[in-house]
C-alpha cells in the first residue's frame, strides 16, 4: 500500500451526450470552449466532458443545454478525465461504464421525442400522459420454454 493523493479535489466532472442531426460533439465542445474560462473541456465521440468547480461547470452545462435542449443529456461522472483507473489509454478496450451509455444512447431517441412532446403540455395533458401504463414484458410461458428445449436437442 502507498499513500493515495487525489487530483482535482473539489471539482466536479460532467458528461455531455448529444444525439442530434443538427448538433455534433464538435459543436458542443466548441461552444463549451468559448465560455470555458479555464475549465477543463475534453471533446469525445459522444459529446464532451467538463471538469471544474461546481459553479463553473453548472454555468457551462446550462449554456450547452440551450443548444439542443431535447437532444443533449448530461450526467455526473465520478472520475476526472484521464484517470488511470478508468482511462482506456491505460487500460485498453472499452472504458468501464461504456456499455451502460451505449445501451441508453440506443433508446435516446424515445426520450428526446418524449421531452419534446411533454414540453408544451398543459397540466391536465401531462397528468393524462403520465397515467398511461408502460407495457410489462410477459414472462416466458413454461410450455414454450419446454418446446424450445426440445428443439435444441
Amino acid at each position: 500500500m502507498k499513500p493515495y493523493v487525489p487530483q482535482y479535489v473539489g471539482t466536479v466532472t460532467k458528461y455531455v451526450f448529444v444525439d442530434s442531426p443538427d448538433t455534433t460533439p464538435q459543436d458542443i465542445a466548441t461552444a463549451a470552449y468559448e465560455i470555458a474560462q479555464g475549465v477543463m473541456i475534453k471533446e469525445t465521440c459522444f459529446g464532451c466532458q467538463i471538469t471544474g468547480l461546481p459553479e463553473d461547470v453548472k454555468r457551462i452545462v446550462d449554456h450547452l443545454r440551450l443548444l439542443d435542449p431535447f437532444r443533449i443529456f448530461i450526467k455526473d461522472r465520478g472520475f476526472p478525465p484521464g484517470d488511470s483507473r478508468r482511462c482506456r489509454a491505460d487500460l485498453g478496450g472499452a472504458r468501464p461504464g461504456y456499455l451502460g451509455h451505449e445501451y441508453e444512447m440506443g433508446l435516446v431517441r424515445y426520450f428526446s421525442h418524449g421531452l419534446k412532446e411533454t414540453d408544451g403540455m398543459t397540466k391536465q395533458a401531462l397528468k393524462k400522459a403520465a397515467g398511461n401504463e408502460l407495457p410489462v414484458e410477459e414472462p416466458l410461458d413454461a410450455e414454450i420454454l419446454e418446446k424450445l428445449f426440445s428443439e435444441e436437442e
Partner: protein
Amino acid sequence: MAKVFIYPATSLILSDLVERFGHEPLGSAISIREHVQTPGFDSPPIQMTSEDPQKGLKWAAVEVPSGVRGRMSLYGPLVEQAEAAIIIDEPDFAFGCMGCARTNELLVFMLREKDMPRLELRYPATKEEGVTFVAKIKQFLKDLEVKHE
C-alpha cells in the same frame, strides 16, 4: 429541491431528467467522486480499500460477500440521504456494468422498504412509450416539488 435516488444508479437518462426538472440526482457518480477525491491509501485494484467492506456492514451482514458490502458502502449513504426514488424495473444493462446482481437486489429492496415517494417504470421501446416515460417522471418530480414547498 429533493434528493432523488436513481436506479440504475449509473443511468444517464434518469440523472439528466431529475436534474433537468429541478431536483438532485443521487447516483454512483456522487459517491465515487467522494471516494476518488478523498486522500488515503492505495489498495489494488486501486478503487476500493479494505475499509469499504467494513463500512458496508451497516447495510449487509458479515456473511454477505465483500463485493456486495463494498458496493453498499457507496450506495448505502445515498439511500439514507434519499428523499425519493425512481426505479427502472429489470434494466438490461444493470446486469453488466453496474456489476453485481445481488447488490442491485439489496439496493432495490432498501429503496422499496424506505418510506418515501417512489416511481417504478420500465425503459420505453417505442416513441409513444417514450412520451409516457418522460411524462411519468416529470409528473412525479413536479409532485415532489409541491410536497417540498
